[in-house]
């Protein structure tokens, strides 16, 4: 410790005090500020602690080292080693205890003045103080003083007392040490060994020496350069650390010949090394000019001698502050806490945290272990739904039967929480697709112009398939003396508009019902825009007025309506000029595109088509109305690719449930992880397929979606697609992942429902029969229904059992007519209908009676333990194991019901509110 660099020490017993010493000693008091404001006059040490300066002592100049008296009393007694080798006792406390008052100011003077390098109080005999000095010719460099020599004269030789008293200056000077050691050498560091109060470890000039005060002529030593900062591990008293330049050596006193290990060398010289007093095997080191404290975590107890394993050391570093650190001190009792001081005396108090290990549970809760403690952290339920993670969302959606509404497919977005516009668009699209599908099929039966298979393939394919030239024609604006070019709607375009939702089924091209539904939902702007795109400006204005007056809509809609009514066809009018500039300031995208449409040149509608905030379906419908075939194809192509790249579910409208759709869904899953929506959506495609199976005449699989098809093969192209999609590895993988999620959440009922839903739409996914019970006598399956299971090789009809077996023979094997085994409880041959449970208590019976009847089928089932192979009727077994742990068969000690831990888990749905 040089004069400029402060050192820092915690009080060994008053755990809220520490001393900073540079040219003077400053005593601070630490307090927590967790529940209080920072007090005036105190210095913030960390987020939740602050220090108050209590006193300053500058009576001891030329300080070289300081050591805190280890005993409780007197308060704040410090030994200060000075540059001239003197050791002074001083205090910062306000102790009035007269017993020790005279200790203060006492000085211990070596024979020859030289620098005092180190001080160490004996941990057992609190009055012994060892001082390590520089070399002075043949003088001793380790002096052990007894600070109480005056007060306990009986243990001190009379001679010594006389000498000290004999000093002329003051009786406080002591010149005769208790012991003198280390002749002709220098002492750089010292520490007492806790093994024995008379053992002292000293870092001498070129060796480490252990002095035994019982026999001062003997010392144990080992030659090494690592002699600085010797310190004993408080948890393993044989482990000692010392350092030299940038290298720390760890010693085992039991095999003192060489260091057990040396730690990685640091580029800069070390200044301090200290074991953590509150945790095993944690060594902190500090190098010069560094703002990092490096910690070595020796996780393992030192192995016995002879074992040459290299201990695992985890190295870590902490950066308590931005400035260089002058010194640090571990807190004596607080776990892993330390305080550091910088050269300009700013201090920070911080805790070295243990390595936290953590794990997520499948249900969104996080568990972590910090030190010896465990913490569980669960997501709060009343959270903003927008910030919810997809895992939570999927769980909630699974509980709300999301995806399972097959009648009104569009309702699924409401089940999903009605918060995601993309999901809304997706389910509406699927709804229209299924709806149109059915309708076109109905139509197809009357006329053989099959467009049905096109429906699921999305607007992109629909548009592509219409290769017949579409003529545009002038259409009159209703209510205006104006004409615009509108494409004649051919069959494909009508289909597209229907998929977009603008027009209803049939050849009726009236958007009236659609407008009404929009108005009902309060989407005034959108309704007005759609009306306008259908050249009905009067209706648009009317809708806006309606919106403004309804009170729910924006009052500014009136203003917009006014602006709209001022429409003029003149090219250079002020209206046109102002609208085309001011429209960009409109917040609502639909209002914006209305003016874009009105001010655009005929044939160029980029302002509408590339307004990304407008729903894809409206833009596509608009394009179908106004773009020529080549323009439309280009636009749809471009938009599709955009949607695919972004994984925007609105794009399913364009791609349909084709390979393109899977690509789109893939980027959606990549982006969100929402396999639930992906699974359910792709299952719809199987529905399309299963419903159109009959209609399919050409089963060839072809993947022609990417090239433009010749007109003649239009229908053949898409028929293979549903199968393609169904077989697509990605789709199967999403489904597998979703099922796995449901399993992990213990949503087994939901998983089963999903499987049922899936097998309805995709019969190939139905699992095969899993268990067959075979007769003991003939070895054949006893099942009556086996003949209907397709993979069962032989039907049972050949064994004389017809398709309608008589009920009276259920207790015997259908193959050989031998009786089936008996139930372990009722001792009746299995296959008989159960009577009510004999084991259950009376009250239970009554309550369960009605239930039992309903469950009669289940209660009738065979069940047995795979371990002991005893069993009986499922109902009887269940009622038995309600009260018993062991098998009902006498002398069988099998704990049948406890064998399977997963079997004892309760499905999560049943405990959900």
């Amino acid at each position: 410790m040089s004069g400029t660099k402060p050192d820092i020490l915690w009080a060994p017993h008053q755990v809220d005090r520490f001393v900073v010493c540079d040219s003077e000693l400053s005593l601070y008091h630490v307090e927590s500020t967790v529940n209080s404001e920072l007090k005036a006059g105190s210095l913030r040490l960390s987020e939740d602690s602050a220090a108050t300066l209590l006193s300053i002592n500058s009576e001891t100049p030329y300080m070289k080292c300081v050591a805190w008296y280890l005993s409780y009393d007197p308060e704040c007694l410090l030994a200060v080693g000075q540059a001239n080798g003197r050791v002074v006792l001083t205090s910062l406390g306000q102790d009035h205890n007269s017993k020790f008052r005279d200790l203060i100011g006492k000085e211990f003077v070596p024979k020859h003045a030289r620098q005092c390098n180190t001080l160490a109080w004996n941990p057992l005999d609190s009055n012994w103080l060892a001082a390590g000095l520089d070399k002075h010719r043949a003088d001793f460099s380790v002096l052990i003083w007894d600070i109480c020599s005056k007060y306990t004269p009986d243990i001190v030789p009379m001679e010594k007392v006389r000498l000290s008293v004999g000093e002329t200056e003051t009786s406080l000077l002591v010149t005769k040490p208790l012991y003198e050691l280390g002749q002709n050498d220098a002492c750089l560091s010292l520490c007492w060994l806790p093994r024995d109060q008379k053992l002292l470890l000293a870092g001498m000039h070129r060796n480490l020496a252990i002095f035994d005060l019982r026999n001062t002529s003997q010392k144990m030593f080992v030659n090494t350069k690592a002699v600085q900062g010797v310190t004993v591990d408080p948890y393993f008293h044989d482990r000692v650390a010392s350092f030299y330049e940038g290298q720390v050596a760890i010693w085992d006193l039991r095999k003192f010949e060489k260091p057990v290990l040396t730690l990685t060398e640091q580029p800069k010289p070390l200044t301090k090394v200290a074991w953590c007093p509150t945790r095993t095997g944690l060594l902190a080191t500090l190098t010069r000019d560094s703002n990092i404290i490096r910690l070595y975590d020796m996780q393992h107890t030192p192995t016995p001698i002879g074992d040459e394993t290299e201990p695992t050391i985890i190295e870590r570093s902490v950066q308590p502050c931005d400035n260089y650190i002058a010194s640090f001190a571990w807190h004596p009792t607080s776990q892993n806490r330390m305080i550091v001081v910088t050269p300009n005396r700013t201090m920070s108090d911080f805790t070295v945290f243990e390595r936290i290990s953590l794990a997520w549970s499948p249900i969104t809760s996080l568990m972590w272990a910090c030190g010896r403690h465990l913490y569980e952290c669960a997501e709060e339920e009343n959270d903003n739904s927008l910030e919810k993670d997809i895992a939570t969302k999927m769980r909630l959606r699974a509980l709300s039967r999301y995806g399972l509404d097959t009648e009104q497919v569009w309702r699924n977005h409401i089940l999903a929480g009605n918060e995601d516009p993309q999901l809304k668009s997706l389910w509406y699209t699927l709804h229209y697709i299924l709806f149109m599908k059915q309708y076109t099929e109905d139509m197809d039966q009357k006329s053989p112009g099959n467009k049905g298979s096109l429906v699921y393939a999305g607007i992109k394919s629909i548009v592509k398939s219409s290769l017949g030239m579409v003529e545009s024609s002038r259409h009159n604006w209703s209510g205006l003396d104006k004409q615009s070019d509108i494409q004649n709607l051919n069959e494909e375009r009508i289909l597209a508009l229907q998929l977009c939702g603008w027009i209803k089924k049939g050849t009726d091209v009236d958007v009236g019902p659609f407008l009404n539904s929009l108005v009902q939902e309060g989407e005034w702007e959108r309704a007005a825009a759609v009306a306008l795109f259908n050249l009905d400006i009067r209706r648009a204005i009317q809708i806006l007025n309606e919106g403004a007056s309804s009170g729910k809509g924006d009052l500014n809609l009136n203003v917009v309506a006014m602006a709209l009514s001022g429409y003029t066809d003149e090219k250079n009018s002020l209206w046109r000029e102002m609208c085309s500039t001011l429209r960009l300031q409109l917040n609502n995208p639909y209002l914006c595109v209305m003016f874009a449409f009105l001010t655009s040149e005929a044939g160029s509608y980029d302002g509408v088509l590339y307004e990304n905030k407008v729903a894809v379906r409206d833009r596509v419908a608009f394009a179908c109305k106004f773009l020529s075939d080549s323009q439309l194809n280009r636009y749809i192509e471009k938009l599709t690719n955009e949607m695919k790249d972004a994984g925007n579910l609105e794009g399913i409208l364009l791609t349909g449930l084709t390979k393109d759709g899977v690509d789109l869904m893939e980027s959606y899953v990549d982006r969100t992880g929402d396999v639930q929506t992906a699974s359910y959506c792709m299952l719809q495609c199987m529905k399309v397929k299963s419903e159109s199976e009959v209609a399919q005449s050409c089963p060839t699989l072809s993947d022609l979606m990417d090239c433009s098809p010749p007109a003649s093969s239009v229908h053949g192209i898409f028929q293979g697609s549903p199968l393609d999609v169904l077989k697509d590895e990605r789709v199967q993988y999403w489904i597998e992942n979703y099922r796995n999620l449901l399993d992990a959440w213990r949503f087994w009922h939901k998983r089963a429902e999903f499987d049922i839903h899936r097998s309805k739409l995709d019969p190939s996914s139905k699992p095969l029969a899993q268990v067959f019970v075979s007769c003991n006598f003939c070895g054949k399956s006893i099942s009556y229904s086996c003949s209907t299971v397709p993979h069962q090789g032989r039907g049972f009809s050949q064994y004389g059992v017809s398709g309608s077996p008589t009920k009276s023979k259920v207790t015997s094997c259908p193959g050989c007519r031998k009786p089936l085994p008996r139930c372990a409880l009722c001792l009746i041959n299995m296959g008989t209908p159960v009577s009510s449970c004999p084991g259950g208590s009376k009250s239970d019976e009554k309550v369960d009676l009605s239930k039992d009847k309903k469950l009669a089928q289940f209660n009738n089932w065979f069940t047995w333990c795979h371990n002991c192979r005893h069993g009986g009727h499922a109902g009887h077994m269940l009622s038995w194991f309600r009260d018993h742990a062991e098998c009902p068969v006498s002398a069988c000690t099998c704990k049948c019901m406890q064998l399977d831990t997963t079997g004892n888990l309760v499905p999560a749905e049943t405990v959900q509110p």
Partner: protein
Amino acid sequence: MFVARSIAADHKDLIHDVSFDFHGRRMATCSSDQSVKVWDKSESGEWHCTASWKTHSGSVWRVTWAHPEFGQVLASCSFDRTAAVWEEIVGESNDKLRGQSHWVKRTTLVDSRTSVTDVKFAPKHMGLMLATCSADGIVRIYEAPDVMNLSQWSLQHEISCKLSCSCISWNPSSSRAHAPMIAVGSDDSSPNAMAKVQIFEYNENTRKYAKAETLLTVTDPVHDIAFAPNLGRSFHILAIATKDVRIFTLKPVRKELTSSGGPTKFEIHIVAQFDNHNSQVWRVSWNITGTVLASSGDDGCVRLWKANYMDNWKCTGILKGNGSPVNGSSQQGNSNPSIGSNIPSLQNSLNGSSAGRYFFPPLDSPRAGSRWSSYAQLLPPPPPPPLIEHSCDADTASLQYPHPRRRSLSRPLNPLPENEGV
């Protein structure tokens, strides 16, 4: 967003690992006290320790569950150079009635010559397989060919990593398009700038694991590594705990484009890198969907990371290791979660604002006895350090803290320092 509560773990030393089973109803912890504890969650959501037993003769580094379709099976690894496989059995005694379960050691894997630092079961579609890695730089992959007999494990592969291994992670993808893959991290701290993360992939043709990728940019010691649950994505996400949190994506390049038979090529992108933990990051863990990452680091905090729809990763939560919220109750109002450590910033701001007069607590304070005043020097040190700011209520403030001396005087004089574990 998150609230934490403490659970009495009752381990006698540091807990090194926490692991959940497939359903999240059971948990295992392991510790330096050489034991493993199994916890079961009651219907009310409380965790109960149902088993605790000594597993190794050294610190137990990691513990992990097998998929429940293989039974209730745990694997642990330790400093004692072994890994072990444990199975829960229903004993003859009435353990279950006392709420205790019984675990037996099915095998000890003794191939490593050094500390076994990580153990992980392979994804279930690969069968019952187990990977270990050790400080000698070897990843070993074991297989139990007969899932009914867990005492038979055969060493299938030994992959040499050349560097001391600290952590492994299986790629959980069960897609047939993705070959089995394992990522290995090294905590080798020697100054050479070798890449510390290697990814090995199983090659069907050679039936061996071959190195598929090395993350060249990761040169600092790696403490943990975790593949995100794949969940149907077309790419893999890998989180790495090194001196910062890093998230990589690995997108397999289509097989048709690469030469068949060779290892899969990947387009590797680093999508996030956060040094908010200030220094070392110890652990990373993904939630079930691979959308939220939790990390723990040297700042003693647990942080949560989540990507928005633009694939920008952000910190969405931060908690102290002791469960208290970082910016909730603290009155400093430092609500910026992106500042790793509040301490230096606070200190700086204090220093910056404290230009002014400094002086000590008033001398007429009741604590300032004769002793004190005779030794106290009332001049500030030459370069005045920012000690105390002048305020008119300094008097009352200094009176408020409890007097420490009163406590110490009432106790007998104790010559032995308390904290010495003699």
